């Protein structure tokens, strides 16, 4: 078991202050426009205290909790890629001058982020983005520069969305064992609101020294462990992943693709909320005089016909082919490309699909694989 301490809930303000004192730009959950999103946090009161989310396929709504939980929700429509892999992003800027065109980099000092409230599934998603954008033969410098400095405070999953989460199947949650600087488990008992804090790095330990804490007792550990076990046990959605890539690739002409394509609006919501979807397009933008030109990267969506536009034509004209590309990339070809699934089981694509298409249901129907009940 990692080294852990217990802090009172009131210490959260000190954690925030300690991060801010180290010039981190602290990003965390906050309520906006009827959803819990990630944005700059100034004070602890920016957190979604006493709020929770209810999610179903195609549905999301906020509800009041009857307690003061800081992290009493599952995941919202935002993912951390928004900050690590921002869109739009200016790759470089060119100025036309009498001496010629001068190209300059614009990303000299990217923000040093501290992420507060990273769910284990989202921590796994960052790990997946690392493999794609930082750890391969080609490195995206803007991602690397952000990622290498980011300070991560994970929140172990005592709260989740029973009908959309499936991290247990994907092996990404509800508990993170490593990859964080600090990991909180929110312990809410009558008369006691505290966090079990696991220390994942030297940086984390250093920050923690500025908070009033006591060693974690066996009963603190037991309470925390029980919470994540309960999460795992109650997770209603599941996906059989053993043999899944092969089974999907063996069924590229399955009639179910037509079935799901008839429902899919090809809106691309799933790709925008997905914490691992990384695709982007690049275009030049210039001011009216053409004297300043920016080459800009924006998030792109494989559900558009333009995505495969090649020498005068789109290679994936049908909705069927575009949905198939997305799903087989997430659950099959990603494994060949990067050694992991491109899915962490966060369930966002299910919640935010306007017609409630469920990736687990489609993958099971197409692969023909059903999951044996493995609940603890």
């Amino acid at each position, binding site marked *: 078991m990692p080294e852990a301490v217990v802090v009172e809930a009131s210490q959260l303000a000190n954690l925030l202050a300690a991060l801010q004192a180290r010039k981190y730009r602290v990003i965390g959950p906050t309520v906006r426009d009827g959803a819990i999103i990630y944005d700059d946090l100034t004070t602890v009161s920016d957190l979604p205290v006493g709020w929770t989310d209810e999610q179903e396929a195609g549905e999301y709504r906020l509800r009041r909790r009857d307690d003061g939980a800081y992290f009493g929700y599952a995941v919202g429509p935002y993912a951390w890629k928004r900050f690590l892999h921002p869109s739009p992003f200016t790759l470089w800027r060119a100025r036309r001058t009498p001496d010629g065109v001068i190209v300059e980099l614009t990303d000299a000092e990217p923000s040093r982020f501290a992420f507060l409230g990273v769910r284990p599934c989202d921590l796994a998603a960052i790990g997946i983005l690392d493999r794609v954008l930082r750890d391969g033969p080609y490195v995206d410098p803007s991602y690397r520069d952000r990622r290498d400095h980011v300070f991560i405070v994970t929140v172990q999953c005592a709260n989740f969305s029973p009908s959309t989460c499936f991290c247990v199947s994907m092996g990404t949650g509800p508990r993170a064992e490593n990859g964080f600087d600090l990991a909180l488990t929110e312990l809410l008992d009558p008369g006691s609101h505290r966090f079990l804090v696991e220390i994942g790095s030297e940086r984390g330990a250093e920050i923690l020294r500025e908070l009033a804490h006591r060693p974690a007792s066996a009963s603190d550990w037991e309470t925390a462990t029980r919470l994540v076990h309960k999460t795992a046990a109650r997770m209603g959605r599941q996906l059989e992943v053993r043999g899944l890539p092969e089974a999907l690739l063996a069924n590229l002409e399955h009639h179910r693709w037509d079935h799901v394509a008839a429902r899919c609006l090809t809106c691309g919501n799933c790709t925008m909320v997905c914490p691992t979807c990384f695709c982007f397009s690049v275009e030049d933008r210039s001011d009216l005089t053409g004297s300043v030109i920016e080459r800009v990267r924006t998030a792109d969506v494989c559900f558009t016909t333009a995505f495969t*536009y090649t*020498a*005068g*034509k789109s290679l994936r004209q049908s909705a069927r082919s575009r949905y198939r590309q997305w799903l087989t990339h997430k659950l099959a070809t990603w494994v060949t490309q990067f050694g992991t699934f491109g899915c962490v089981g966060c369930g966002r694509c299910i919640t935010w699909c306007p017609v409630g298409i469920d990736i687990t249901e489609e993958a099971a129907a197409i692969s023909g694989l059903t999951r044996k009940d493995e609940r603890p």
Partner: protein
Amino acid sequence: MSDRELEEFLAVHPFTADLDESQRARLAKQARLAHYQPDEYLIQEGRPADAFYLIVQGLVSIELFVPGHGPRPLQTVEGGSAVGWSWMLAPSRWEFDARALERTTAVVFDAERLRALLLEDCCLGLRLVQRLLFLVTERLRAARLQLLDLYGPPRER
């Protein structure tokens, strides 16, 4: 040109190479060797379809004469291939021109005698019809691909 020499041509031509020697010998009896100069016609549209040509060497253009434009080549046929199948469906007339583009050598069969031979020896008949069908399929496939205008300018977005 002796039958013997013709048989030797038939023995190496892809169209007849894998027939039995006896079958080739019977075919050779109906055949003659012909030479064509560039621009000389083997076949002309509208004339009776009275022969079958195995091209030994050279290049032959299957074409139509377009008024105001001249000969319009549609496909070319090279040594190792064959020209003409209208003779199978007698009595019939040629529907296209076949013109030598280079000095061309062909083994030419008299259609009437060939038809008679194929009816007489149905086994040989079937084997030749299979080869003709292969030829027709190949030409049709090429024509279909040409219709697609594969290398044309891409459609504007």
